[in-house]
């Protein structure tokens, strides 16, 4: 099998070169220099991805919990406030990542349908406003009935925007020429979405336990368990694609690999799955500490997973052999 065939992804077409030119790529690079440039996205961006993912999924949980009626009032309230908190803190962190933070509002100069960052900026704005309205219903609803009605009316749209917030960041990373991010657009979004939902369910489970609503917390932990199982599958699919494309090294080796395997997978998925599983088997006797630790691990692991993906992407952009591997052929 020739090198070109090995490297070219299925469903892609290689451009024709003259016969006198070497037909197969044997791994040549230009003095080993990077072929594309790495992003400037750092821990501030991965923090934002985590915070807004949790906030977005919290709105989804709030909308679903509200259907359970008055018994879910506490959960709905906490979910809405969590979403509001996230949509206030997240953008502040994100704006700090801009090289000219004072021009953050230029994000709202235009709507660019081809740019997930442009659409994401508008989505974030809408989500923030809707989260504010839904929280307003909680804060002023008792004294002012109109506020409650506004808050409830905002809940549906807030949940939809929240679903978008949980996943759009993956679409943003995938829509670049960074080999690692661009090679797995769908699995990455599924991974970010499931991690966001697991994080929101875990954060709310912690809050429910603190409020003494243990049974509600257990349902949230069950949701987190399910989301983690799905995250495991999505993560496996992403890894499979990276390996098949021959560009998995940055996320498997070195510090980033340790963060990915130790933080994102072991701490963020395997440990909480085991803890929650044990809790299921043993029942009530397991006590509150184990599920609480598991919830904390989900949140920390989710952050580690996002940060590992971000770092590995930036590293893969600096590897010309990776950039050339994924550009041997292109879809029409």
């Amino acid at each position: 099998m020739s090198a070109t065939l090995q490297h070219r992804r299925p469903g892609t077409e290689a451009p024709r070169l003259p016969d006198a030119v070497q037909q197969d790529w044997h791994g040549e690079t230009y003095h080993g220099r990077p072929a594309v440039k790495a992003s400037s996205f750092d821990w501030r961006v991965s923090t934002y991805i985590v915070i807004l993912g949790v906030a977005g999924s919290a709105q989804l949980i709030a909308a679903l919990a509200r259907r359970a009626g008055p018994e879910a009032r506490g959960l709905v309230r906490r979910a809405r406030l969590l979403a509001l908190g996230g949509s206030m803190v997240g953008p502040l962190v994100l704006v700090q990542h801009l090289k000219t933070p004072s021009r953050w509002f230029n994000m709202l100069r235009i709507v660019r349908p081809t740019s997930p960052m442009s659409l994401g900026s508008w989505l974030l704005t809408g989500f923030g406003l809707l989260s504010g309205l839904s929280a307003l219903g909680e804060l002023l609803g008792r004294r002012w009935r109109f506020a409650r009605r506004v808050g409830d009316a905002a809940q549906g749209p807030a949940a939809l925007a929240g679903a978008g917030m949980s996943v759009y960041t993956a679409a943003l990373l995938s829509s670049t020429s960074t080999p690692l991010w661009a090679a797995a657009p769908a699995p990455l979004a599924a991974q970010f979405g499931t991690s966001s939902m697991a994080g929101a369910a875990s954060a709310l489970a912690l809050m429910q336990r603190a409020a003494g609503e243990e049974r509600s917390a257990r349902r949230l932990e069950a949701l987190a368990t399910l989301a983690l199982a799905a995250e495991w599958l999505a993560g496996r699919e992403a890894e499979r694609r990276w390996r098949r494309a021959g560009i998995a090294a940055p996320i498997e080796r070195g510090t980033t690999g340790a963060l990915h395997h130790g933080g994102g997978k072991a701490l963020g998925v395997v440990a909480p799955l085991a803890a929650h599983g044990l809790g299921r088997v043993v029942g009530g006797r397991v006590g509150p500490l184990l599920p609480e630790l598991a919830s904390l691990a989900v949140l920390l692991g989710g952050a580690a997973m996002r940060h590992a993906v971000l770092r590995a992407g930036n590293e893969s952009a600096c590897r010309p052999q990776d950039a050339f591997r994924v550009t041997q052929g292109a879809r029409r």
Partner: protein
Amino acid sequence: MAGGLAHPRTLEYTDRDPQGPVPQEAELTAGHRVESGRSYGFFTDTTLCIGCKACEVACKEWNNLPADQPGLTGQSYDNTGRLGAHSWRHVTFLERGARATSMPPFQSNWLMMSDVCKHCDPAPCLEACPTGALFRTEFDTVVVQQDICNGCGYCVPACPFGVVELAKEDGKAHKCTLCYDRLKGGLEPACAKSCPTDSIQFGPVEALQQRAAARVEELEAQGQTAAYLYGTPGGPGATGGIRRLNAFFLLTDRPERYNLPPAPSRPSRNARPSFLAGLATMAGLAVAAALIGVGRR
């Protein structure tokens, strides 16, 4: 004119300052007028490049770009290293083995190419820019508006060729403007005008493409059968949703040797499958949450 420094055609404009620029000077230096509404670009013929770096110097001089790579790389004569915020032309050097004795005299067998922003159509950096700082000019070129850019840096990983970069000094994205200011004044871009061998040619893209196709045939007739165009419609470089590169190249070896991807893709094509897969995941999780009975005691 004392010293004969002014162009003879200034005499046609005696009512103007004779030291000032000649209107539509590009017609004299490049053979093409610069008119808004037409597509302009570069045809960089690497078989003519002698690696003099006059283009790099002219670019830095005209655009007031600071020297940012004072060291030596040890990579042939390439001490610029890469395109970046302050290097909008970059001459690549590849010393291809020993000179083949079967070659005609006065040929080195080296590959040299003056790399530049490709001014893609459609342009991934422009498609990524959330502020509208990156825009398409009346000359069909792609330019960053420095007073709009807020340094989000999304155009940097979006570019399939690693061209755009944030400057450390001001945190804004910078890249080749195809001398937007010169085009406005009817001047040929600085790099093309300074190129002593006409390896860099400036003109309307369609005219350049025709000229380039003819050049490939001419080279073939001369025995250089490895010549091909990178960035013309349907060819390497113009793949994956990128229709054409307004700054295209004539190469004689695999694109990777010049640090170019053989089949780049328009990255924004990944957004829809990613976003839809994510939303489907969230819908599935919402159904699961409803079945679990989240909210119930």
